[in-house]
C-alpha cells in the first residue's frame, strides 16, 4: 500500500531542501534577466558552475580561506556575465540565448576534461574545500533532526538554514531594486528597448547590469549548493538544469519578486511526491500500477511534471503570482 505519511514528509523535505534553494537562486537570477529585463539567458547553470568551481579551485588550488573562495566564485560570475554580455547585448535577444547555452556547455566540458584533472578535478570533480563551512554549524553534523516526521541530517539542516537566509537576502535585494526607478528602466527595456533609447537611457549599460546581477545570483546558487553537497561534479551542471530553473520561474510567475522561490518549491515538491508515489506504486510483488516498470519512474515523473506545466500554462499562463491582465496584453 501507499504510505501517504512518508510521501508527504518526503515532499515537504523537498519543498525546503537544498535543491529547492539551489533552483530558487538560479530562478531569482533568471527572473532579473528574463522576468524584468527580457534577456534570454539559457546558460544560467554555467553561472552556477563558475560560482561553485571558482570557490572550490580558489580554496583547493590556491589555498585561500573559504570566505575568499566565496568572493572568487561571485567575481567569476561577474566576469562570465561581462564576457557573455559585451559581444551580444548590442544584438537581438536571440544571440544572447545562443551564446549563453553554448558557453555553459563549454564550461562543463572544460571542467570535466581529463586534461584539466589537476586543476578542476576532471570527471572526478572536487571535494574537500568546504570543511570550514561545516565547522561553523551550530547543529550536530551527524545527527538526524526530526520536525514532525520531516527528518534532516544536521549538516544538511545547517546548509538549508544558510541557503534560505541567502534566498531571503536575495529577495530583499531584488525587491528594493525592482520598485526603484532602476527597475522601471529594466521593465521598460523588456517592453521595447528602442523606446527606452529614445528617452535618453543607455540600454546597453542597463542590460549589462541586469546580466551581471542575475549571473551573480546564479553563482551564489552554485556556491550554496557546492557547500551543501561538499562536492563538485561537472556533469551536474548540464543544460537541463537551466530549464528546470525556467520551469520554476514560470510556475511561480516571471516578473514577480516571490515567483521564482515559490515556483522552485512547488517544482521540487511535485517532483518528490510523484517520484515517491510512483516508486511505491510500482514496487513489490503485487504493485498498484503494474504497467510501469520501477526502472522507468525517474523518467516518468518528468513526463508528469511536463503535463502539469502544460495544464498550468493553459489555465494560469501568468504563473501563480503573475497578473493576468499583463499576459492578456500579449494576446492583443
Amino acid at each position, binding site marked *: 500500500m501507499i504510505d501517504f505519511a512518508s510521501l508527504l514528509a518526503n515532499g515537504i523535505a523537498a519543498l525546503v531542501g537544498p535543491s529547492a534553494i539551489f533552483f530558487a537562486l538560479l530562478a531569482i537570477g533568471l527572473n532579473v534577466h528574463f522576468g524584468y529585463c527580457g534577456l534570454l539567458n539559457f546558460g544560467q547553470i554555467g553561472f552556477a558552475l563558475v560560482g561553485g568551481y571558482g570557490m572550490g579551485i580558489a580554496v583547493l588550488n590556491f589555498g585561500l580561506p573559504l570566505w575568499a573562495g566565496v568572493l572568487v566564485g561571485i567575481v567569476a560570475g561577474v566576469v562570465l556575465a561581462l564576457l557573455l554580455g559585451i559581444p551580444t547585448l548590442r544584438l537581438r535577444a536571440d544571440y544572447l540565448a545562443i551564446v549563453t547555452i553554448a558557453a555553459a556547455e563549454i564550461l562543463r566540458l572544460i571542467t570535466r576534461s581529463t586534461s584539466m584533472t589537476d586543476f578542476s578535478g576532471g570527471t572526478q570533480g572536487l571535494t574537500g574545500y568546504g570543511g570550514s563551512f561545516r565547522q561553523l554549524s551550530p547543529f550536530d553534523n551527524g545527527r538526524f533532526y526530526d520536525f514532525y516526521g520531516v527528518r534532516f541530517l544536521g549538516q544538511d539542516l545547517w546548509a538549508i538554514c544558510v541557503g534560505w537566509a541567502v534566498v531571503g537576502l536575495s529577495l530583499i*535585494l531584488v525587491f*528594493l*531594486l525592482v520598485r*526603484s*526607478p*532602476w*527597475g*522601471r*528602466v529594466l*521593465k*521598460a527595456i*523588456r*517592453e*521595447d528597448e*528602442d*523606446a*527606452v*533609447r*529614445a*528617452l*535618453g*537611457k*543607455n*540600454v546597453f549599460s542597463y542590460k549589462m*547590469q541586469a546580466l551581471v546581477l542575475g549571473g551573480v545570483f546564479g553563482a551564489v546558487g552554485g556556491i550554496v549548493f557546492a557547500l551543501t553537497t561538499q562536492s563538485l561534479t561537472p556533469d551536474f551542471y548540464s543544460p537541463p538544469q537551466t530549464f528546470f530553473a525556467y520551469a520554476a520561474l514560470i510556475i511561480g510567475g516571471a516578473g514577480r519578486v516571490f515567483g521564482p522561490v515559490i515556483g522552485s518549491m512547488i517544482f521540487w515538491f511535485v517532483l518528490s511526491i510523484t517520484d515517491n508515489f510512483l516508486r511505491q506504486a510500482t514496487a513489490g510483488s503485487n504493485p498498484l500500477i503494474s504497467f510501469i516498470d520501477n526502472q522507468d519512474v525517474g523518467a516518468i515523473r518528468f513526463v508528469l511534471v511536463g503535463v502539469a506545466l502544460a495544464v498550468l500554462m493553459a489555465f494560469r499562463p501568468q504563473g501563480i503570482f503573475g497578473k493576468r*491582465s*499583463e499576459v492578456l*496584453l500579449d494576446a*492583443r
Partner: protein
Amino acid sequence: MRVELPVEVPAQPGARKPDPVLVIDSITRSFGGVRAVDVAHLEFQRGWITGLIGPNGAGKTTLFNLLTGFDRPDTGRWTFDGMPLSRLAPHQVARRGVVRTFQLTKALAKLTVLDNMRLAAPKQTGERFIGALIGSWGRQEQANTCKAMELLTRFQLDAKAHDLAGCLSGGQRKLLEMARALMMDPTVVMLDEPMAGVNPALTESLLQHVKSLRDDGMTVVFVEHDMDVIRDISDWVVVMAQGRVIAEGRSEALSANRAVVDAYLGSHHDQALEFDADGNPVGQTAMLVAEIESELEAAIERGQDLSA
C-alpha cells in the same frame, strides 16, 4: 497663427534660415543600391513647426533615424545648436534635447501610463544601481510624478494614469508618446507620423497639441505623408522624394509647385477623371484606363511581379 520672420526665407531646397536649430550637411544613407537619403544641405528653423512630407519611400523616416542616432549615415554631418550631433548614440541625442517619437507607437504596454511618463524624466538618482539601493530618490520621484500628472492632464490622459499603457487606444498612445517626450524638456521634438492610424475625430485634437508644443517654445519637426494635415499647422514644409529634398517653402506655396505635385501624383495628375452613371470611365479617362491596363497585361506577359 503663424510665426513671422523679419526676413523672408527663400522657398528653395537647402534655404538658409535666420536661426537654425538643426543644420544638416551632405548626409547620405544607402541600402544596397538604393540611395534612401541624399540631402546636401537642410536647416530647421528654431521655434517653427516644420513638416517633412513626401510620398512613401521618400526617405523621411530614414532621415529621422539618422538624425536621432538610430541609424548610421554613410557620410554627412549635422549640428544641433552648433554642437555636432552626428555619430552619437540614440540616448545621447535624446539627452541633448532632440527627442523623437515613432511611427508605430512605442507605448510600454506592461507599464502603467504614469510609469511610462516617469521613466522619461532625465537625471534620476534612482536609475543608478547604487542610487536605487541606498540613495534617497523618493523626493525626486514625487516631483516627477507631479510633472507627469500635469502633462497627463494637459493631454487628457490623467484618468488613465494608473492603467496599463497597453490598454490605451491608438490615438491615446500617440498622445502618451508625445506627453512622454515632453517629460524630458526637449528643445526639438521630432514626431514620426503623429497622425498615422489615428481616428479622424482625434486628429484635430492631436494637431492642437502639436501647435501647443511650438507655443511652449519648442521646435517641432514632423513627418507626414498627407498634405492636407500639414497645411494647417506647419510654418514651413520640406518636401522629400527619392531621398532628396525637392522643395521647401510655406505650405500654401507648395501646392502649386510642379515638382511636388509630380512627386505625389505622377504625370497624369492634372487630368480630371470622368465616369458615367454606372461608374465606368468615359472619354479621356477611358483611354487612360485602357493604357494602364495594356501596360499591366504587357507586364504580366513578361512575367513581371506586380505585387512589388
